[in-house]
């Protein structure tokens, strides 16, 4: 009978180790899910401000008048800013979200070919150096760097009209209708490696 004791102990030990391992693996996953759920709530809160502002300035149908488009974009931006005057970095991209996003982005970058990374740096080369800020109107004379499609597949979906953009190492959330920077995440992408070094406009 006694000879079964070591076997039983072995089985119990194995089960314990597996349980610990599963727990360790499961915890980040659960934590990520909870953080991303919180991220969604924060996006919804922003969209509530956006929608209220849109109701105030009115919807826009296609028009021949560029003035109407420009006026509406500006009015929408102002109304949204008015609705979140105290917005600050990290309100939507909280430190917890930042941790997840940095991990996703850096892992994704690490798996890209040199040519793909060159493309990404070329796209950034077209941007003048500027520091994006929350509630800032994205400078209308600056281009927008193409966002890597492969990275879009990895990041959580955003409600329209919010989109992700990379400005050098910053990840920004941008309201494309109001041309407004909703939130900013510094050091999101790896630093530019100088693969292209062209800096051409």
């Amino acid at each position: 009978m006694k000879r079964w004791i070591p076997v039983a102990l072995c089985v119990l030990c194995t089960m314990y180790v597996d349980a610990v391992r599963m727990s360790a693996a499961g915890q980040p996953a659960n934590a990520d899910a909870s953080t991303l759920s919180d991220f969604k709530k924060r996006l919804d809160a922003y969209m509530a401000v956006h929608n209220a502002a849109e109701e105030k300035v009115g919807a826009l149908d296609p028009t021949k008048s560029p003035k109407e488009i420009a006026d509406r974009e500006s009015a929408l931006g102002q109304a949204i800013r008015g609705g979140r005057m105290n917005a600050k970095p990290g309100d939507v991209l909280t430190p917890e979200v930042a941790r997840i996003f940095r991990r996703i982005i850096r892992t994704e970058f690490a798996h890209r070919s040199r040519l793909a990374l060159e493309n990404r740096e070329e796209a950034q080369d077209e941007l003048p150096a500027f520091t994006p800020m929350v509630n800032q109107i994205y400078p209308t004379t600056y281009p927008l760097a193409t966002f890597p499609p492969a990275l879009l597949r990895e990041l959580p979906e955003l409600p329209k009209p919010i989109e992700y953009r990379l400005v050098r190492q910053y990840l920004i959330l941008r309201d494309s209708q109001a041309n407004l920077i909703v939130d900013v995440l510094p050091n999101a992408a790896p630093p530019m490696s100088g693969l292209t070094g062209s800096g051409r406009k």
Partner: protein
Amino acid sequence: MSRLTRRIAVVVFAAIAFVSVAAQDLQLPLKPNSVRFLVMGDTGTGDSEQYETAAQILKWRQRFPFAFAIMLGDNLYGSERPQDFVKKFERPYQALLDEKVEFNAALGNHDDQNQIYYKPFNLGGKRYRTFKKGDVRFFVLDSNYLDPEQLKWLEHELEGAGSDWKIAYFHHPMYTSATRGPVIELRAALEPLFIKYNVDVVFSGHEHLYERIYPQKGIYYFTEGGSAKLRAGDITKTSLTASGFDTDRSFMLVEIAGDEMFFQTVSRKGATIDSGILARRKVRTDLSPARNPATPVKQ
């Protein structure tokens, strides 16, 4: 000047005049019921070269009356105040607008997304869309932000396009010999769909030059990003390059009739810099990835 020298001078002058006139000949067949359109990209500078190219387009339209134009993005560079729409789009193309030429724009990386609301660009409030002319189906994509939703939409639309000609256009090139090179990630996302659903031709801008690429996996690629901006000397010809032009601005005239697409690329000065006939993908027997050059137009 000796008699011989005079004769040589006359012959040389005649030859130059002949070549010059030939270069300005319309090489498109103007077949009945064909689909005719203008292709231009990276137009919105508002500078004199844009206006001169626009004037040349107008001249050619007298001989090749196209009904619509496709714009490959960067429709307005720099500021986008109401007066910029006038200076960089409405004024240079006023004569075409007056003649009810329909412009169908794609968005470039320099374009404010709210251009989707500008009626003359015909985006109808959307970043990407499809439209049909005759038996040609166009897919206008937003290559700045190729999100999964857009790809899903594209696949759905391509699947439903049946046997129409399929032409996709967007700003960033998937194949180019320009210095900056092709956008590899765009190619990875789009090429499988283009192959699966038999896209025939792809037009892009972004690189400020003209280039025709040898068919890649059976698909013809053109870059026409030099209709106002120019990056002189930027083509490093590679095995991809079927034809390239980077010394002046240019635009393309295209005619589709039956299973053939005729094209003629013209410079700001009015010279023909490339022309040819492409067969529709479904009737081509040689869809090898290597070479399947366009047939020169027979005079």
